[in-house]
């Protein structure tokens, strides 16, 4: 089966005053139709830049310096701007954290959704509105007819994010990149949206890349997990396996930092220090200064990717369970 999204050796750099910063460093992953990949990391890990790189949304002084990005077999890198615009929205779409960044505040929901339909397909306004209404119904919006007539400010935060997701679904893209789409929402609303997303992936076969800092969300949603640290994927594997028995010391540390599962009131096992500046990464393994398993080897030599179904970027991975 052709992967819905196949990323090989993606490297994105930014030319900053502090020097050339490699925000995404030689990462590879693929997602098959109907599957959900959780891309997890803390601030500055490169998870959002990965999403932007796939959509071709990196502007100067940044550039995608190397790698292949294939959507249903079509290579996106090197596409002419017009061709890339045709792909964006129809074959691969994005959902952002803040729906008000996506929605035009002065247009009715129906008007802007119909516009998104007609950018890619010749179709009457009436038919475009009908398509928009169906998309709203798909994401579980009650009374979609009425919502089409509403302006974004008349909707709640959860409802706006559903509209943004519905807009991404208009052309049944093979891939949706979702960048922290539920982070700003209340837990009860987040629960509703996660349930809808799982159902969408199962029913429509859309492949989803779910970018988040929240391990609990990916552990209940994703099929596969990639953990990012300092621009690299440090661990990749089936969601249940990575959560149950992480092999990279960073993944272990992250999971241990979450209070649930620890005796209340007791100190949490913490990762010392803080995430390194990308412009000033330590030599060898970037996680070495914070790592309890580090040796002299980690000081000098960056770890290479090992692969046995689980990819772990570490000289001294934890034992497989």
């Amino acid at each position, binding site marked *: 089966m052709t992967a819905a999204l196949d990323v090989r050796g993606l490297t994105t750099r930014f030319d900053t005053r502090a020097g050339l910063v490699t925000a995404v460093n030689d990462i590879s992953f693929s997602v098959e139709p109907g599957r959900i990949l959780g891309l997890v990391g*803390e*601030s500055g890990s490169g998870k959002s830049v990965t999403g932007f790189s796939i959509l071709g949304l990196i502007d100067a002084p940044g550039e995608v310096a190397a790698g292949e990005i294939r959507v249903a077999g079509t290579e996106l890198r090197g596409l002419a701007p017009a061709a890339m615009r045709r792909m964006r929205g129809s074959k691969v779409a994005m959902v952002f954290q803040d729906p008000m960044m996506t929605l035009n505040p002065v247009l009715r929901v129906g008007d802007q959704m119909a516009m998104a339909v007609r950018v890619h397909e010749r179709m009457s306004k009436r038919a475009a509105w009908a398509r928009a209404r169906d998309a709203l119904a798909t994401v579980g919006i009650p009374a979609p007819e009425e919502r089409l007539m509403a302006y974004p400010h008349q909707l*709640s*935060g*959860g*409802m706006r994010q559903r509209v943004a997701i519905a807009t991404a679904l208009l052309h049944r893209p093979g891939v949706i990149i979702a960048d922290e789409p539920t982070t700003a929402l*209340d*837990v*009860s*609303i*987040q*629960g*509703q949206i*996660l*349930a809808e997303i*799982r159902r969408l992936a199962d029913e429509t076969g859309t492949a989803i890349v779910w970018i988040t*800092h*929240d*391990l*609990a*969300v990916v*552990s*209940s*949603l*994703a*099929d596969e997990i990639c953990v990012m640290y300092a621009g690299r994927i440090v661990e990749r594997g089936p*969601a*249940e396996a990575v*959560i*149950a028995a992480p092999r990279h010391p960073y993944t272990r*540390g*992250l*999971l*241990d*930092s*979450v*209070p*649930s*599962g*620890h005796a*209340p*009131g*007791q*100190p*949490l*096992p*913490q*990762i010392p220090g*803080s*995430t390194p500046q990308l412009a000033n990464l330590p030599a060898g393994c970037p996680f070495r200064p914070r790592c309890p398993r580090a040796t002299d080897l980690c000081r000098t030599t960056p770890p290479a990717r090992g692969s046995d179904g689980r990819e772990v970027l570490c000289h001294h991975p934890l034992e497989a369970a």
Partner: protein
Amino acid sequence: MTEPLLKIEAVSKRFSRRPALAERLAGRITGRPARDETVHAVTDVTLEVARGEVLGVVGESGCGKSTLGRMVAGIHAPSEGRVTLAGQPVARDRGGHVTKLTPNVQMIHQDPFASLNPRMKVGETIAEGPRQHGLTPPAEIPAMVRALMAQVGLEGAYANRLPHQFSGGQRQRIAIARALAMRPDLLVLDEAVASLDVSIQAQVLNLFLQLRRDLGLTALFISHDLSVVRHVCDRVAIMYLGRLVELAPAEELYAAPKHPYTAALFASVPEIGRGRRAFHPIEGEIPSPLDPPPGCPFHPRCPMAGPRCRTEVPALGPAGPGRAVACHLEHGGTGAEVAA
């Protein structure tokens, strides 16, 4: 039993907005006069916090948890009811107005990028309160700043730096040091770890637990994060749409929530290790506090609601030792039983 340190007695807070001129004119023309809009941020909340206790306040946006915290800190004066700290009102009101903020309650805010003065050296920030209130003799201030910074895990030499030279986690440590400098009786932490990365959040939570042990802190810990609250709090108050719906010791609440909202909230929170599973999210949306539903605030979303819930607001009543619930199910039934 000793007198509780903090008493919140039947406190309500409403915010009103007069209609703008254009709205009033439009109202006059159409014959439907524009009315004042009133947000019922907090309605009839009664709570007590014992000395040395950490009380968690949990709820979703618009539930009134931050407004409650601000009333405790004396930033807002309650519309009704009163807040007392060791028997003294926190806002020394003359005609209902806040005249002086009590230094005995200190607040730690969510965003350490907004809560520190970007132009002030962090040592100055920490020293400002005790200096203003004359708590520490001027000669002892530099030593006090160094001691406080050490206590929150920062090097004393950083006192001359500006906030932008620190990471988010370090800034939150500075905010904690600033609060502790006042030697407060009570801390109010409003989503104090919500904006931090998980690994940094764990460091700050550990610091809080350590300080709690060393100093015997009393605190109101406001958060939307159920797992964080469980980890640091002795008792937990659950709020919904301005009302207190459940109050219980943390362990018992997490073991067996009694209010349908609490139960639904727990069920819709993803948790590590529970694995992939079907979510059972709460139906519907949180109603607007501008126009709260009649009866129980949760009844439009509650699977157990009956006729009584639609008309009568359930009172917070005892539900086992140390526990209280505001739900007709616990206290006399919803009325659905009669119909059935």
